[in-house]
């Protein structure tokens, strides 16, 4: 599974962090950082993160 966040669209809401903290984090500068190839076992959490992103900036491939 590949995760892509469109960083031009992302506004650092951090909603994705609540759903999948293993994959998405807000760093000290308040910006989103994420794991681009998370483990398959996290699929449900990543799907949920993509659903709850207010800007729908997260795409999942594979």
């Amino acid at each position, binding site marked *: 599974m590949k995760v892509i966040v469109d960083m031009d669209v992302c506004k650092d*809401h951090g909603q994705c962090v*609540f759903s999948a903290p293993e994959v998405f984090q807000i760093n000290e500068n308040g910006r989103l950082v994420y794991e681009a190839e998370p483990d398959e076992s996290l699929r449900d959490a990543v799907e949920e993160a*993509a659903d709850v992103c*207010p800007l*729908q900036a997260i795409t999942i491939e594979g």
Partner: protein
Amino acid sequence: MTQRIVIAGASMGGLRAAERLRAAGFTGEIVAVGDEPHLPYNRPPLSKEALASEVTHEALAFRLRPVVADVAWRLGVPVVSADLAARAVRLGDGTELACDGLVVATGMRPRRLPVPGPAAGRHVVRTLEDARALRAELRPGVNVLVIGAGFIGCEVAATARTLGASVTVVAPEDAPMRRPLGAGLGAALRRRHEERGVTFLLGRTVRAFLGEERVTGAELSDGARLDADVVVEAVGSVANTEWLEGNGLDLSDGVLCDEALRVEGRPGVVAVGDVARFPNPRYDGVPRRVEHWSIPTDTAKHAAVTLLADLGLGDPPAGPFAPLPTFWSDQYDLRLQSFGAPVLGEDDIRVLEGDLDGEVVVGYHRDGELVGVVLIGMASAAGRYRAALNRAPVAA
């Protein structure tokens, strides 16, 4: 025979319901009927990012997951009536659709001001077409009159100002976003808008719109007259429930549901999203509608399970529906976030971190307990407060 579920309303709530029905194992037919001509799209940018740049369906459309690939979308046609006893709905083109299960997802429409005057030049913001029409009129120097100081009014004011328009906000309250924020934070929000050049005329309403062919201004309740090239009415919303009339339901404010999101007393009929009025045992069990973006997703999860159990296709939900309300609003470079139910704690409001004119965390308490939090900025603290509110016991 294959079972059929009809989803009335093809926006976020309808889409999430379809996804959740499939995720919960429903293999029958799903027909989603929507009166808008578009596949489901995301509304919040319509008063923010999209209004500030360009409003296209392509940029706002929700991604359609593979699980909903076989949903039949009937778009551009409304559901005009339902006969719940006979399990059938009628569409605007005369089609009768029989259904085993029904999902009510028809949401809200903007309330219009019942005052005299020309219609041209008056806008609301709910749909793509609304936002596109308003966008076309927002140019540097135009006089924009925003009526209503709720979150949509405040966001439109901020976006219009950013685009160089001169902006006046008229509203009956004494501060913007008064209800959810309380007086102190509302006043601080007003100062932030004023610093950026927005004028507030509060404690007033509009008595009439002026102009012949098109709006040129407004007369206020105190007799004052204002010039306006563009008017935006952001004065609340009305539930789209007329099509459910004649079934003996409580439609006084959305559609009344039980704690499983079943339409009161109607097995096999559930409601999701803005239109659902449901009790939240996390607070006091009083049924309320919640117009937050997180609600279509939360309600769909629970309602899909309830519906399939009613159809004999699964177990009922494990517990009552008790979501933590979550809301955000963007105005200029300010990110406002709200968790829990600030309105329930409006008699005991405390600044928890920061200060009202900078980044701030405000706590709302009931009987000394934290029931809601609003943050301006302070993004890194959001998770902590959200977790604290989530840990609070849910009374059964």
